[in-house]
């Protein structure tokens, strides 16, 4: 897998500048270009033999053209001169017919980032397709050997991707960032009598040496799968519910969506007009830290080309800031929070481990897996399919499946959140520890 970030940078920057220049000559008042290229290797092995070898090579370019206060966008994966010209013309044609949108502006020269720090987000993994297949076979073997009840497999897989994206505007922005993501995963099936379950485990990082070992991934997949065997439905009742980090992260993501500009100016958030009011218990502060070297969510600049910064959205339980881009800030008559493209490395972590939280809960449901969408951001209503474990006397009693958990996000996060665990899941940009809620309606038998 050959990828030369410097060469890609030169190629895509040259294209970007050429299109920005050309846009002026065909009558555009402003122009924004995003160009990206990536190469990757994706392999899979099943039941000890190679199953899939895939090389990915993607490139695309998007252009937004401004005519007065109107705009039009177009994208292409063909970067030939003819295709780029017709893509630019298509964007221009759209900009001539759309209604003016005064909120849509390019970041000005004095707003855009000056020096892009190196956040060490690109790390090559020098692995051949043959060695990647061997590793995929190994991770699966580790999982299949871990327990006799593992009877089948959907395979072990290894992936490695490197890419680079360039962002330029006619206001003088020209920045680029190379990134890499490597991963190892395993999906297993277990059987015990009539009961059949599947589960998985994965590791993901920007640096290959930060991946968990194949033993660790295979063993975790096996343990998670076997633990689900012979599940029961629990009784319909209002009980305490504990979300593990993999399911809890979705609650924080939904909260972030509800305080994001797009939901706010569309009046589609249950947190409309709630700035300065309580949205979490007093002990909660939610902060993003976008400049951590090598982290999954790191970026030196946002989608508008403004420098990212460490900042809090919730301070001592109070909603202290929305999540805004230049566009959504203009729509709301506010200042951008440099969050075009979302929040980056938002971590929510407490002091105690999962074991301590289970003991604290005493009796209730641990949710390890969620199914379906079921989150209504307009009013905060929450209802999703779930499986996990029933807890009795502070200890796991039996696996649970085919139930739903329901409540309202506002009530859950503001009134019912009791504790957050220390078990942070750093594979994600929005990462939390386990979250314990005083009560939710669990529908079962």
């Amino acid at each position, binding site marked *: 897998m050959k990828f030369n970030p410097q060469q890609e940078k030169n190629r895509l920057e040259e294209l970007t500048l050429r299109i920005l220049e050309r846009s002026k000559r065909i009558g555009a008042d402003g122009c924004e270009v995003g160009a990206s290229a990536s190469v990757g290797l994706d392999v899979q092995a099943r039941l000890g033999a190679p199953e899939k070898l*895939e*090389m990915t090579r993607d490139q695309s370019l998007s252009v937004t053209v401004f005519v007065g206060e109107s705009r039009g966008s177009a994208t292409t994966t063909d970067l030939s001169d003819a295709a780029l010209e017709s893509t630019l013309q298509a964007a221009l044609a759209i900009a001539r017919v759309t209604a003016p949108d005064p909120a849509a502006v390019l970041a000005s020269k004095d707003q855009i980032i000056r020096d892009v720090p190196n956040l060490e987000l690109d790390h090559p993994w020098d692995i051949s397709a043959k060695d990647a297949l061997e590793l995929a076979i190994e991770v699966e073997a580790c999982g299949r050997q871990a327990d006799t009840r593992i009877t089948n497999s959907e395979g072990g897989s290894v992936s490695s991707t490197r890419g680079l994206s360039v962002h330029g505007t006619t206001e003088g922005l020209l920045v680029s960032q190379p990134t890499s993501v490597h991963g190892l995963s395993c999906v297993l099936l277990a059987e015990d009598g009539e009961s059949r379950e599947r589960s998985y485990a994965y590791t993901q990082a920007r640096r290959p040496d930060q991946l968990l070992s194949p033993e660790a991934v295979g063993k975790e997949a096996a343990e998670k799968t076997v633990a689900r065997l012979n599940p029961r439905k629990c009784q319909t009742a209002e009980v305490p519910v504990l979300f593990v980090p993999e399911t809890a992260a979705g609650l924080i993501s939904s909260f972030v969506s509800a305080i994001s500009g797009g939901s706010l100016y569309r009046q589609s958030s249950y947190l409309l007009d709630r700035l300065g009011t309580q949205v979490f218990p007093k002990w909660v502060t939610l902060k993003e830290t976008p400049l951590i070297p090598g982290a999954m969510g790191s970026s030196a600049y946002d989608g508008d080309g403004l420098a990212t910064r460490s900042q809090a959205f919730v301070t001592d339980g109070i909603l202290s800031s929305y999540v805004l881009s230049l566009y959504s800030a203009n729509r709301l008559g506010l200042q951008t929070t440099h969050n075009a493209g979302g929040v980056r490395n938002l971590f929510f972590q407490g002091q105690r481990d999962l074991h301590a939280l289970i003991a604290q809960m005493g009796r209730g449901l641990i949710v390890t897996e969620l199914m379906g969408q079921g989150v209504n951001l307009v009013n905060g209503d929450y209802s999703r399919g779930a499986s996990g474990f029933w807890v009795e006397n502070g200890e796991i009693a039996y696996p649970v499946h085919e139930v739903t958990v329901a409540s309202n996000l506002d009530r859950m996060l503001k009134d019912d959140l009791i504790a957050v665990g220390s078990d942070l899941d750093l594979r994600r940009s929005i990462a939390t520890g386990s979250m314990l809620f005083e009560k939710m309606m669990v529908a079962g038998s």
Partner: protein
Amino acid sequence: MPTLLQTVSESILAPGGLSIDDLEPLVGELSVGDVDFADLFFERAEAETYSLEDGEVKDASYHRDAGVGVRACAGEKQGFAYSSEITAARIREARDVAIAIQDGRGPRGGVNLDQVSTPKLYIAKNPIPEKVATDKIAFLLEIDAKARARSASVSQVQATLSISYREILIAATDGTLGADIRPLVRLSVSVLAEKNGRRERGSSGLGGRYDLQRLLTDAHADQLVAEAVDQAVVNLDAVDCPAGEMPVVLASGWPGVLLHEAVGHGLEGDFNRKGSSFYAGKIGQQVASKGVTVVDDGTLVDRRGSLNIDDEGHASQRNVLIEDGTLVGYMQDKLNARLMDVAATGNGRRESYAHLPMPRMTNTFMEPGDATQEDMIESVDRGIFAVNFGGGQVDITSGQFVFAASEAYLIEQGKVTAPVKGATLIGHGPHVMSAISMIGDDLALDSGIGICGKNGQSVPVGVGQPSLKIDRLTVGGTA
């Protein structure tokens, strides 16, 4: 008049200096060593989207994509690479990656391509240039006006017009040479209604494989506006949904997403070959109530999920999956059909040239029975009548699935009473299918908005069903 194959190959191959005559030798180069099957999948796609918000169309975009995917299969192994440049040099580079997964050496001889016939289930036409941009925008503005006129409680209207056009060309070592032209249009409306500080959303959509002249009609605008606005207004008065197991009556049409999740995915050939589906090895067994017949049919005229030929060049067909409660068939692509020693069923689909094909659904629905919706509701003492749904999800190994009601009502003593808030419904595929006690005479297909996701790939699909009564289903309310 040029044939469809001539039109498509000229459009896709000529820009990169290739012609139809180059395909035989290029495919032949994939027939090496122990490769059982290999194919080239060429594609050229265009899409255009217009979005209305705040009473104006301020946002629109155009997208173009073209490329070729090169795949080689040997036993259970697949090697795959693709390029967005359609030239002989790039195809050979991708070929070197694709054939690296097999162990054998040396060429095995040529391939004779034979053109598969393409039925005409939908028009071979690009709907994008059919109307000028200002007409498309004017139509969306009309929807905005109609929605605001329908109810004073409407505070926001969003409407989106999506127009897509796709040309595909397939050449495979089994001699398949196929081409298709696939238009796909979709119109969707989402409104926010507001009353006494409470806000609720309602949405609707429709589309299919046809042109704009048929899509952009006053009747369609009225229908979509009525559905979205009325749903939002109803939800303004919704009470908390009950929680627990109870009888559920499902309306006809889009609630067929039940079948897509509870039955469809579990009957895809790959999961059954690998033994990972709950339905693996159950052919001939009863998996649903008597009277339940479930079909996947890619040959319905103009439907969103229909295909003249699938993405492996196999003609789509009508496949009976469950007949009178008994499991009779799976959905197959070429790879899984070969490995399971059965016939392919025209269900090999891929999101694009940059993705590997898999067995996927087309239009999945249940045949009608003879009960009426009124009889079903009358037979329920306390339960839910669910009219409209969002999406769903399934765990094909355990059989557990969910689907989320977006418009539903309480049934109390045989009568539909108060609207209830949206809730997720959860069940176990075969258990729920066996709890179907009444099947309606009112089979309806959905309006043409379905998107199915599997292993990170999205494809358009259709669903449908008559009204159904399910004796016991877990409803995820809060009351």
